[in-house]
């Protein structure tokens, strides 16, 4: 720090030193990135596969999450390092695109980085490594396409779908009842799927959880559940053939957004205002009644008086229903969301066969079931479980299973799991490497080694000898020219994933390889970090 003293002897700063900033350049910078990326991958590595372990995460507010979903772990980890944040993004984009394989993609990227480090030490230029990786990833994606199989199912035969979802669920804590959960997930997806267009709108599936009961009580409901109760305790708890008015306007006096005032300066005005007010409430309720609604669902609150009038006119009502739920209800019941009372007409009402209130446990927790809807395209998965963390984890697992089922409907190609696809790719890439002249050959070989790390991690987590198992499976694949051999994680006794019914979706796998390669390329290209150091 360059300091000088003025005439009174007080110090002042002439130049702020560059020591305030840290700077890393060249190979050091790349090594720092690689080690950060590897550190993230190392955290997730133990969560891979059916025998993977969970992580316990404590948020800044002290809430505890227990999960082995890669995306969730990274999301909640609150990392500070820039490269680590890239890895978090990576896992998130896999989650958005595919919904499953969020752990695998990070482990893959970590392995690629590890291999790259070795090449860099030997003096290979990072760009050459990146290019080699790019070629290799193209080879493996193509190879995946070759070994993929079409997969036959339709709305009546959902068994293959269930099998695939079971593979996804088997790595989660819910694997105790993976069969029923997988069935629920598949049924839900099939219920909302548009098989013609091969598309599934997952927004139509609502996943709701309530603490209590057991996991086995989890059920699929052909309708909507709302965590609300009737606005007045004495309204009927069960309505058959309900006609539902879905409102986004409150049962309250109007509140214009522009500033205004109503001045009361005489007794007459006071009285007319009072009468108007009364009439206003009366009109609102009457309007609902006139169009033939038998249930009112409202996004906002009710005034006490309006509430009583509703009750009085025998019109059950639910208040403070969230926007998302409101939309779902509208979709399910075939109704329209009505923003103003004036626009309420009979056609805009939704229809549901049965609306009922159900209470749980010893506390007064109630939920509203809307079932037998006019349009059965919206379903709810209602999860029960021993504690809050269990419910949250089940929600995440179900989400993964739903995504897998959706991907299969979109594209029914599958590859076999248990690391078999990675091993097959590794063999193909290894073989292709020899055909490339130049430095890239090394990078392509390194890519093949990195692919091996996924089955290795699987074997390690399952308590098997990683190197021994991997080499055995690899030689078996080459010898029998059969890409179905993988790691026998569950100790079933056969390596044939086809017999074990362990599938993964083709697009999921391809996406994993592509995304991991992209991120690694990006990381390798950075050669300078300038960061302000902490004070």
């Amino acid at each position, binding site marked *: 720090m360059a300091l000088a003293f003025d005439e009174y002897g007080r110090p002042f700063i002439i130049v702020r030193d560059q020591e305030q900033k840290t700077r890393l350049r060249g190979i050091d910078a790349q090594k720092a990135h690689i080690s950060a990326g590897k550190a993230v991958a190392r955290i997730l590595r133990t969560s891979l596969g059916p025998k993977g372990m969970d992580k316990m995460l404590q948020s800044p507010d002290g809430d505890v999450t227990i999960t082995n979903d890669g995306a969730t772990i990274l999301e909640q980890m609150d990392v500070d390092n820039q490269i680590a944040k890239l890895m978090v993004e990576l896992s998130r984009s896999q989650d958005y695109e595919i919904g499953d394989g969020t752990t695998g993609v990070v482990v893959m990227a970590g392995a690629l980085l590890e291999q790259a480090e070795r090449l860099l030490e030997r003096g290979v230029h990072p760009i050459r490594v990146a290019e080699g990786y790019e070629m290799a990833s193209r080879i493996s994606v193509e190879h995946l396409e070759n070994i993929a199989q079409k997969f036959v199912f339709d709305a009546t035969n959902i068994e293959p779908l269930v099998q695939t979802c079971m593979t996804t669920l088997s790595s989660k804590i819910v694997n105790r009842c993976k069969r029923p959960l997988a069935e629920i997930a598949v049924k839900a997806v099939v219920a909302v799927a548009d098989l013609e267009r091969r598309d599934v709108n997952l927004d139509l599936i609502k996943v709701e959880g309530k603490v*209590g009961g057991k996991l086995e009580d989890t059920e699929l409901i052909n309708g909507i559940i709302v965590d609300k109760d009737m606005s007045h305790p004495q309204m009927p708890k069960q309505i058959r053939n309900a006609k539902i008015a879905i409102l986004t306007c409150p049962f309250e006096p109007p509140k214009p957004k522009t500033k205004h005032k109503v001045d009361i300066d005489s007794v007459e005005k006071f009285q007319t205002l009072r009468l108007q007010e009364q009439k206003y409430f009366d009109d609102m309720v009457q309007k609902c009644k006139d169009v033939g609604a038998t249930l009112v669902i409202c996004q906002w609150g009710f005034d006490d008086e309006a509430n009583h009038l509703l009750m009085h006119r025998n019109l059950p009502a639910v208040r403070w229903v969230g926007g998302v739920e409101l939309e779902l209800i509208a979709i399910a019941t075939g109704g329209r969301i009505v923003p103003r009372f004036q626009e309420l007409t009979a056609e805009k009402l939704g229809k549901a066969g049965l609306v009922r209130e159900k209470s749980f446990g010893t506390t007064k927790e109630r939920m509203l079931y809307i079932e037998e809807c006019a349009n059965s395209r919206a379903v709810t998965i209602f999860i029960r479980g021993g*504690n809050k*963390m269990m419910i949250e984890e089940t929600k995440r697992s179900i989400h993964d299973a739903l995504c897998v089922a959706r991907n299969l409907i979109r594209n029914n190609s599958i590859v076999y799991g248990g690391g078999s696809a990675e091993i097959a790719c590794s063999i193909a890439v290894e073989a292709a490497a020899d055909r490339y002249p130049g430095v890239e050959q090394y990078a392509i070989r390194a890519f093949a080694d990195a692919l091996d790390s996924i089955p290795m991690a699987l074997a390690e987590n399952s308590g098997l000898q990683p190197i021994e198992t991997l080499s055995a499976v690899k030689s078996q694949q080459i010898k029998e020219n059969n890409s179905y051999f993988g790691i026998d994680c569950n100790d079933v006794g056969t390596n044939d994933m086809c017999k074990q019914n362990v599938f993964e979706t083709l697009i999921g796998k391809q996406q994993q390889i592509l995304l991991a390669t992209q991120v690694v390329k990006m990381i390798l290209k950075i050669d300078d970090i300038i960061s302000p150091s902490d004070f």
Partner: protein
Amino acid sequence: MAHLFKDEATEEKGERARMASFIGAMAIADLLKTTLGPKGMDKILQSTGRGRSISVTNDGATILKSLHIDNPAAKVLVDISKVQDDEVGDGTTSVVVLAGELLREAEKLVAMKIHPMTIISGFRMASECALNALLRKVIDNRDDAEKFKSDLMKIAMTTLSSKILSQDKEHFAKLAVDAVMRLKGSTNLESIQIIKKPGGSLTDSFLDEGFILDKKIGIGQPKRIENANILVANTAMDTDKVKIYGARVRVDSMARVAQIEGAEKEKMKEKVQKIIGHGINCFINRQLIYNFPEELFADAGILAIEHADFDGIERLALVTGGEIASTFDNPESVKLGHCKLIEEIMIGEDKLIHFSGVEMGQACTIVLRGASFHVLDEAERSLHDALCVLSQTVVDSRVLLGGGWPEMVMAKEVDELARKTPGKKAHAIEAFSKALQAIPTTIADNAGLDSAELISKLRAEHHKEGSTAGIDVITGAVGDMEKLGISEAFKVKQAVLLSATEAAEMILRVDEIITCAPRRREDRM
């Protein structure tokens, strides 16, 4: 290694993480252990809030709720205890102790280099086997009303015997059973009201068949009404504001103010007239009733009660069969509540309003008397536990014997399973049975008995087919639970078993703990 996390974040890995969670969970279990069983001790809890108020309790859920815990694994246990409380109401201590014991056993297995996943699959098999063993032994007296009632009585006594009410457990068990039987199968405990009044002794507590409202009757209004017609309302009885947004009074002279005030009064008077027009002689409002309308009511000879709390209003409406009204324009269609007699009664020094002969027979009020607030609070919690268990038993009438009997039955079955299972899982299954036996051991230890001796005797007893032996804490020996009349609800035991296993499983699966940097809060001084 690169710097990954924010400054204050910590990361625990592998063995260390597992150890941290084991220790945390076991610490919580040990904390609660001494409160288990009929001779369990209580804890004093002092709040950090203003006034440093204290409460004395041995209710597991209450203790855990008041603790500030930093260990994430311990939080899992707190959570399961809370859920147990919400779902079945009792067994909140047992569930934590069982989970703690399971983890203690698991720790030994991990030290033996058995993989946590193997332990988990062993635990799962064991818990399934234990549940099946219980299912085979349940007694269901649903069809026999007389026996069913005695079952309920026994369950209530067993539940209460570990609480402060144990001295008068017969009295309270009777109270609780009567109250629950009135519900006729619904689990809605809202219609059982508990009123606490210090003074007198616990035995002076009683069950009242009517409804008691802790309010005073307005001055100059009748103190006793027979064949009352009651209007339950939720409406503003102060000035009945104009609700239109942005409305305000703007006047230019004193006279105008007076006019508007007059109009307001007139409006109130009209409203009161309308209310009176319903042909009622009792009016109960959730909100305040100002002096002016109160006076009007008094003039009309109507009993007006203001400021009943919301629960009170709902319950009152439920009990008297009326509806909660907020507008009064159509008197003919408003459903009024009825009761035979409203009178003011004295409990201790307080005056309360008593509604008897109500339409709905479901509701009742339990008035608790006791030496101090702490005693009353604890009594209320205990009674609440008993009521919860009973109402759940009415729904699911399967019953088990108590006093460590179910644990021993399960332990025996699980042990047999362990012997039949090949592989490392057998160790885990064996450990499960040991953890189950820890519960009767703790009960015996807490009673100051020689647990090692007792448990081995008990195990020998249970080797015989169809044994009903359990620990008789009073005499300190192995006794016949059936003769002693100690019973527990199946639903409670099932919930304890399942959630404890689930929690232990969750904690075992963890191999890494990442604690984020705590959010900084502004110092609020």
